[in-house]
């Protein structure tokens, strides 16, 4: 879908700058403003500008980027025979989602809401590692994790095939991993067990630690793909280049037929795309002349390559949210005409859109710090960062808008929720004045719980108000600068993102979302 940047945001502009005559008071103005904002946020979604996760089972698929990612990840995990690359929610995809949900212990409803999306992220992405232990019952992994392990072993060059249902091949892959970990002295002096247990799998999925291990390697390796560490290093490099936005795709992520994957060793031999991407990476980091040679001499040079990746990971960790936001906002504010191209780029990115943005921040930061280094590459990496920054802010602001009436009712209710005459009651008189009644015979624990609830409800309401206020004030200033249409909305989101990101942790999840199955 092509986004028309000339349209949109009309409601807000009219309301903020030309409030209609005859308004009765600030509450009427608040209603008109928030109502207009809600309409514009809806239009931004239905017009294809942003693709939030659906809050209920979608009637039709709208988001090509997310659907492409979901399809490719489910293919990698073996829930689809091959990746058709169709951007529709067809019956095959729905069945695959259901099977994944069943295997991951989620509610089986056939659509990808927040919970299913996060589960896919945790199991398949390289940057979003969560608590791997939650996929185990004791030492037994859930079936979805077994598939994810098989995929990870394949991606990292530790297993030639994605044979998740063959325990012998899984064990062989883990033995291979044990040898590599021993080479790299990971984790420390301990030796991992070559079996599916939480400690081994947590290390296998800890991409940052694997990078650190490779960066610390001291001696050259034989240029031989049969050497376990060499093929492993090449595969990790491929993943890292993909995460950093270079034009390579790790094995298992390219949509090959699941049951007939190409053996890793064949993929790596004479991999021209990998060689080009490696050379481009060296070149982008100031090694212009010698970059092709450095790429060819990977067996000797890989620790230096991984040290650069490690530096990008560290740089990203050291960047505060405000710095990231400022970095992106300045870039876009300097060239707002780029926005349309950026948005077109995001539509084609697929899985790369949703993994690796942390590293890209570090990559970008390090590039801009280099004297004489390559000027910032305006391309898909910038598109990834801009979209993510704006999308995250959109999600938070949208949640605050949706939740505001419930929150307002929460603090303005006559009787505070949870009041129980047997223990404690709180009542709003008028004007947010309160009367509290504490029963001397009440249960102290219940009283403490009630007080916690009061604190949480008011903190959440305050946060919601602050998010909306910050958004409105930024939007007003952006509009006054003459930025209108959807570009105005995106610029507002970019500018306000660090402020509302910092507030987000105080928001409570509305009860209907928490209960949502896929979400």
């Amino acid at each position: 879908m092509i986004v028309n940047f000339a349209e949109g945001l009309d409601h807000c502009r009219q309301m903020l700058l030309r409030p209609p005559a005859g308004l009765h008071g600030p509450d009427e103005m608040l209603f008109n403003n928030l109502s207009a904002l809600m309409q514009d946020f809806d239009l931004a979604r239905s017009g294809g500008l942003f693709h939030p996760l659906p809050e209920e089972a979608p009637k039709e698929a709208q988001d090509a980027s997310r659907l492409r990612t979901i399809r490719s990840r489910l293919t990698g995990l073996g829930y689809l025979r091959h990746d058709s690359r169709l951007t529709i929610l067809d019956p095959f995809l729905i069945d695959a989602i259901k099977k994944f949900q069943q295997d991951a212990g989620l509610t089986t409803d056939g659509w990808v809401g927040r919970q299913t999306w996060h589960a896919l992220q945790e199991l398949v992405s390289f940057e979003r590692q969560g608590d791997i232990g939650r996929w185990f019952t004791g030492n037994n992994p859930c079936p979805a994790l077994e598939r994810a392990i098989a995929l990870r072993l394949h991606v990292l060059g530790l297993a030639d095939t994605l044979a998740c249902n063959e325990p012998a091949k899984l064990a062989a892959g883990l033995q291979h991993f044990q040898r590599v970990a021993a080479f790299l002295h990971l984790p420390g002096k301990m030796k991992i067990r070559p079996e599916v247990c939480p400690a081994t799998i947590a290390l296998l999925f800890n991409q940052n630690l694997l990078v650190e291990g490779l960066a610390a390697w001291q001696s050259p390796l034989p240029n031989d793909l049969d050497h376990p560490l060499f093929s492993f290093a090449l595969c990790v490099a491929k993943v890292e280049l993909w995460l950093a936005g270079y034009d390579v795709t790790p094995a298992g992520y390219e949509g090959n037929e699941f049951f007939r994957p190409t053996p890793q060793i064949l993929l790596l031999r004479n991999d021209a795309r990998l060689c080009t991407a490696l050379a481009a990476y060296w070149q982008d980091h100031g090694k212009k002349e010698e970059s092709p040679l450095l790429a060819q001499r990977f067996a000797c040079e890989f620790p230096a390559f991984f040290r650069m990746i490690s530096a990008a990971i560290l740089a990203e960790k050291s960047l505060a949210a405000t710095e990231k936001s400022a970095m992106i906002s300045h870039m876009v504010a300097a060239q707002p005409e780029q926005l349309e191209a950026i948005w077109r780029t995001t539509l084609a990115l697929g899985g790369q859109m949703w993994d690796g943005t942390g590293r890209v921040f570090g990559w970008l930061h390090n590039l801009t710090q280099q004297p004489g280094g390559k000027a910032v590459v305006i391309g898909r990496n910038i598109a990834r960062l801009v979209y993510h920054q704006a999308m995250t802010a959109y999600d938070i602001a949208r949640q605050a808008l949706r939740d505001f009436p419930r929150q307002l009712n929460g603090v303005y209710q006559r009787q505070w929720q949870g009041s129980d005459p047997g223990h404690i009651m709180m009542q709003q008189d008028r004007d947010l004045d309160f009367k509290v009644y504490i029963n001397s015979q009440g249960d102290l624990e219940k009283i403490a719980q009630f007080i916690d609830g009061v604190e949480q409800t008011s903190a959440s309401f305050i946060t919601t108000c602050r998010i909306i206020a910050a958004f409105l004030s930024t939007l007003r200033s952006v509009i006054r600068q003459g930025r209108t249409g959807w570009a105005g909305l995106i610029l507002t989101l970019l500018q306000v993102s660090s402020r509302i990101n910092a507030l987000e942790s105080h928001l409570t999840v509305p009860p209907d979302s928490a209960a949502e199955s896929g979400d």
Partner: protein
Amino acid sequence: MPEERRGLRAALEALRETTCDLTSLEVQTYTGNLEVLFDKDADVNLTSFETVLKKVKVSGTLKLAAMTKVNIDGDTFLLTSENDLPLHVQRAHDAAVQAGMETRAALLSLFANVIGIGV
């Protein structure tokens, strides 16, 4: 979000009906050695403080344990019935004061931004 807009309208109408003056805050906290003996068949969906007090049997005394009044100029008046309020009573009172002050500040800031005088 048409449903949300209807919800917003209703919430703001409730706000308008119950709000006259946000310039001062008053919180009163009562304690009592009460036996809460409800008639089993009675309606327990109690809607107000006063209703509850009518429905409980008071075997002791209900007393004002603490009262705080905060004016817009920052002047604060605190009245307590005892030197050492029980910790849970103090905490409940403080939480209500905090909730009252911060929620009205947030609401006022939102209104200020809506009418264009917010920072």
